[in-house]
């Protein structure tokens, strides 16, 4: 029995306003904007509460579903129950400055420790110079100096006196010492005077001078060791004086931090270092730099600073950190460098924390796509998760990009939960290709794309109210809320579901608010919502308009009336960014005697995808099993999407392809005022397809442009009826019986609509009534078989 068109009531499921008992959404209270995501929420709660290695979370959902908001809300709530984690700082390692030491402190103590150290150094900068200014030090130092000077001068004077006895004077020359004979007035005798002396006198003088020179020489050789000794004594004195000044101040700190062994150890090192470098604490007058003398590179007190990298002093809960730019350095931390005298230098004060440091003891949220886009960030993060410690390593150095000296800061133990969020595709790809992924991300929080409409309408309206309030939009009228809910169903392509894609809904409300303002409405009305929907389509549908124009002008050939053998209107969906629309395509088939093969021209020309090819193979299997169970399948058919120059993929045209092959085979013309979509299985049952609304609307628009005849319509799978959320103009045309939607369950039902003939059922012998579609198909196949047999027979006779 021929199928009747669907009732208009099945083409669109309106939102019943009686279920929305408010006049505007202003009356509704705020709710969590996330609805119907129980599975994801439970997964996240499980993930953030469970201990153990690798229980990190991957939240899967397409962008715009509000997963970050949800995760953040849940995690912040959970963080409120967790203690505030420790402060962390880096201090100088006095024995090995390239390996700074980390110190853990209770929350808030980091800043205090930093200030204490700063104060200590300020105190020492006063106390140490004061100690060295004191009379006691001064007189002791001068005594040592004087002792040293006297020791040398006495030795020289002794020699001078001895020389004087022989009328020889020890005099200083610009570069040393020399002995010279003098007259009675103690003036050096000049060469003429010397020549006047007797030879014996001259010789005597020369011998005396030679002896004195030897003695002077050996005396001068002793001076360096005497000076060294004095220097040692002075250093010893400096040390004792410095110790007296330092001990008092440092002991106070040692008492304050008595319970922290690592700070005690550090303070002992500071004490030793201050004493070793006591000269740094003595202010020096400005000096002119001599040639090749380098200026002081940096503040000598910098090495006593505390680099507080994590300060939780003001925090009341565990941290929740979202790193928007998760590159390697922003995650793991980095060591900065400073250009100095043409080279790059660094020290522990230039260690900068990463998101991991800030999130330590709490939660870190990262966008998986952004993370994977950053070179080495993913590898670095995995390494941290495996080792459970943050080890700041210079990426440039490990890649040998620079050869500057860098640091190896002591690693900081890490305890935190990592929540990655991203597309499902990323999750599945990581699962597939990264062997460590499953080990490190054991909890998947899968966000649903849609929620059940029947049970969540009221909640959904609450969500609309909350968004409107948060985004400072006008409240929605009851009808506007209903229209948004209907559009939400359309967004998911299912009359029984609502979209959870918050961004789309938020955008719709924002745009509707704009139109409401333009239209002078206090609240967003249903017409404003519709205007927003229509205007968005208008902004995006240039290509659709061009395509439809080509069909209307006959450039792309689509018939919307009449009957043709081996030709049918198939339907496909084009997705262009945020906008998708239906496009009718002419599918043609030719048949001839052959060996049971259906030639898919799309596949042969490499324009057909795998799923499409699968659909075509199913057709040949169905035709053979239905019509050629007892005889050879002597058919060859060719299928083609006419005027299609791009890739054809999917099996939603397999029902149309089946009908067009059978039409060609039986030479029965098909209605061109009907377009069809649906896939078919080997048993001839019609299966659901996607984009049913867009496809129907696509053919409707073409027919409407050419003029609705009242006979036009679309055949869809019966299982797709529940997805129908058609445009109002389509529904109105259906109500006016100008356009029909047929829902079919079998190929036969579709054939009856397309051919206006009975499909025909097989009798107990498998024979079909002759004047039915199936009968004509079977008869034609039989003819092909018989002709083939004759050919084979005459061929054999010729051979014999």
């Amino acid at each position, binding site marked *: 029995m021929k199928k009747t068109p669907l009732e208009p009531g099945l083409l669109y499921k309106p939102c019943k306003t009686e279920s929305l008992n408010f006049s505007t959404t202003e009356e509704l209270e705020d709710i969590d904007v996330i609805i119907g995501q129980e599975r994801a929420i439970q997964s996240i709660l499980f993930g953030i509460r469970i201990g153990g290695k690798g229980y990190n979370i991957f939240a899967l959902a397409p962008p715009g579903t509000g997963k970050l908001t949800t995760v953040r809300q849940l995690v912040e709530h959970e963080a409120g129950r967790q203690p505030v984690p420790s402060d962390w700082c880096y201090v100088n390692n006095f024995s090995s400055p390239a390996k700074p030491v980390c110190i853990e402190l209770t929350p808030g103590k980091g800043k205090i420790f930093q200030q204490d150290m700063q104060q200590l150094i300020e105190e020492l900068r006063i106390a140490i110079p004061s100690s060295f200014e004191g009379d006691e*030090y001064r007189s002791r*130092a001068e005594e040592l*100096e004087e002792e040293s000077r006297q020791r040398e001068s006495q030795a020289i004077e002794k020699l001078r006196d001895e020389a004087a006895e022989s009328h020889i004077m020890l005099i200083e*020359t610009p570069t040393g010492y*020399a002995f010279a004979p003098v007259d009675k007035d103690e003036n*050096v005798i000049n060469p003429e005077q010397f020549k006047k002396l007797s030879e014996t006198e001259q010789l005597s003088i020369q011998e005396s001078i030679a002896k004195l020179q030897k003695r002077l*020489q050996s005396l001068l050789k002793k001076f360096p060791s005497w*000076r060294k000794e004095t220097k040692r004594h002075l250093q010893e004195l400096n040390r004792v004086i410095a110790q007296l000044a330092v001990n008092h101040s440092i002991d106070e700190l040692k008492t304050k931090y008595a319970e922290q062994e690592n700070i005690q150890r550090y303070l002992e090192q500071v004490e030793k270092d201050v004493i070793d470098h006591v000269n740094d604490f003595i202010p020096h007058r400005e000096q002119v730099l001599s040639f090749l003398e380098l200026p002081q590179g940096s503040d000598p007190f910098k090495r006593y600073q505390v680099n507080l990298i994590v300060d939780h002093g003001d925090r009341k809960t565990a941290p929740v950190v979202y790193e928007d730019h998760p590159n390697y350095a922003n995650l793991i931390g980095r060591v900065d460098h400073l250009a100095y005298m043409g080279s790059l230098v660094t020290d522990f004060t230039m260690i900068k924390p990463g998101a991991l440091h800030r999130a330590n003891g709490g939660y870190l949220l990262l966008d998986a796509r952004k993370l994977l886009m950053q070179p080495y960030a993913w590898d670095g993060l995995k390494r941290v998760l495996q080792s459970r410690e943050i080890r700041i390593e210079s990426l440039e150095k490990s890649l040998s990009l620079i050869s500057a000296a860098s640091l190896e800061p002591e690693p900081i133990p890490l305890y935190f939960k990592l929540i990655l969020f991203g597309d499902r595709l990323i999750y599945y790809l990581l699962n597939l290709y990264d062997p460590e992924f499953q080990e490190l991300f054991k909890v998947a929080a899968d966000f649903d794309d849609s929620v059940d409409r029947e049970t969540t309408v009221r909640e959904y309206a609450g969500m609309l109210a909350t968004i409107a309030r948060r985004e400072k939009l006008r409240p929605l009228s009851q009808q506007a809320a209903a229209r948004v809910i209907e559009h939400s169903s359309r967004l998911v392509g299912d009359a029984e579901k609502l979209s959870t894609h918050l961004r789309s809904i938020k955008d719709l409300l924002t745009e509707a608010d704009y139109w409401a303002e333009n239209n002078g409405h206090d609240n967003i009305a249903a017409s404003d919502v519709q205007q927003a929907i229509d205007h968005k389509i208008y902004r995006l549908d240039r290509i659709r308009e061009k395509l439809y124009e080509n069909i209307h002008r006959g450039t792309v050939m689509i018939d919307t009336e009449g009957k043709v053998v081996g030709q049918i209107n198939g339907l496909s969906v084009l997705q262009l960014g945020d906008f998708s629309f239906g496009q009718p395509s002419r599918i043609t088939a030719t048949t001839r005697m052959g060996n049971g093969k259906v030639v898919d021209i799309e596949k042969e020309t490499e324009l057909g995808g795998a799923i499409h090819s699968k659909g075509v193979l199913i057709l040949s299997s169905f035709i053979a099993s239905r019509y050629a169970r007892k005889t050879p399948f002597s058919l060859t058919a060719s299928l083609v999407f006419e005027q299609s120059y791009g890739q054809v993929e999917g099996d939603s045209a397999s029902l149309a392809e089946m009908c067009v092959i059978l039409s060609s085979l039986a030479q029965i013309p098909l209605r061109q005022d009907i377009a069809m979509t649906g896939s078919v299985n080997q048993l001839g049952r019609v299966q659901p397809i996607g984009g049913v609304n867009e496809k129907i609307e696509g053919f409707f628009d073409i027919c409407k442009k050419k003029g609705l005849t009242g006979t036009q319509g679309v055949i869809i799978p019966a299982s797709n009826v529940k997805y129908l959320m058609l445009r109002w103009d389509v529904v109105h045309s259906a109500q006016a019986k100008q356009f029909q939607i047929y829902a079919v369950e079998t190929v036969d039902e579709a054939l009856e609509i397309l051919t206006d003939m009975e499909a025909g059922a097989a009798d107990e012998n498998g024979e079909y009534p002759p004047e039915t579609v199936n009968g004509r198909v079977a008869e034609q196949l039989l003819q092909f078989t018989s002709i083939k047999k004759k050919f084979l027979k005459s061929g054999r006779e010729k051979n014999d």
Partner: protein
Amino acid sequence: MTDTAVLKKRILVALDAFQDYQTLLDIAASLAEHQSAALSALFVEDINLFHLAGLPFAMEIDRMFSTEQQLDEMKMTRNMESRLRRIRRALSDVNKQLRLQVSLTVVRGNYLTEALAAAAEVDLLLLENPGKRPARKEKTAGKDLFIRPVWLVYDGSPAADRSLDIAGEILKNRHAELNVVLKIQKGMDCAELKKKIQEKAAGFHAKAHFFVMAEENGFPSIMQNVLQKGSSIMIVNRELGESAETRKMAALISEAAGCPLLLVS
């Protein structure tokens, strides 16, 4: 010389081959700048050194390496010329930086004799222990904090008052103390002098300490104190000891005190 309105003041700094000429020039330049005076340098080539270098067996022991080296006139001349070049450069810098009128005279002879002879024509004479390198100083932790005091010999004369003013100029840039050696003449009120000096010293933010010079011992009596307290410069008015006495005093102070001596006319 004293008529400053007509003739420009002159400051003479006497140098030889040994002193820290830069420090002496700095002091002299600073004083010249404050007094708008011309700065003259007198470089004395020690005649004894040239006599020594002329002797056929002249040798020297190198101060740094303790090695024996031949000494001759050429080497001595080279040494002197090299030092002169440095002094000229330093004077040129002073001229450029402070826009002072500078001059350099080179003589060969005895340092003190030549310096004191030149002193007759200048307002201030700056000299230092001749024929010896500056005393070696060990590096102590607080060396820069120990600014040695400025010593002034004061007898209440107008020249002594000028000396006090100059001491003030020197102290202005140093946070040092002023040690005043009071040379009491008959009929002088010691307390009055001290009060006067203290008031002046307060004007240039310095604290004055007083030492009375016993007349019978003269300068040798105060040298003990100078050595004990240290000295950055000693200021004496030239009238305190003319001719032979001045030479004796200058030799004593400059040798014993180990600091520059400023003679004020």
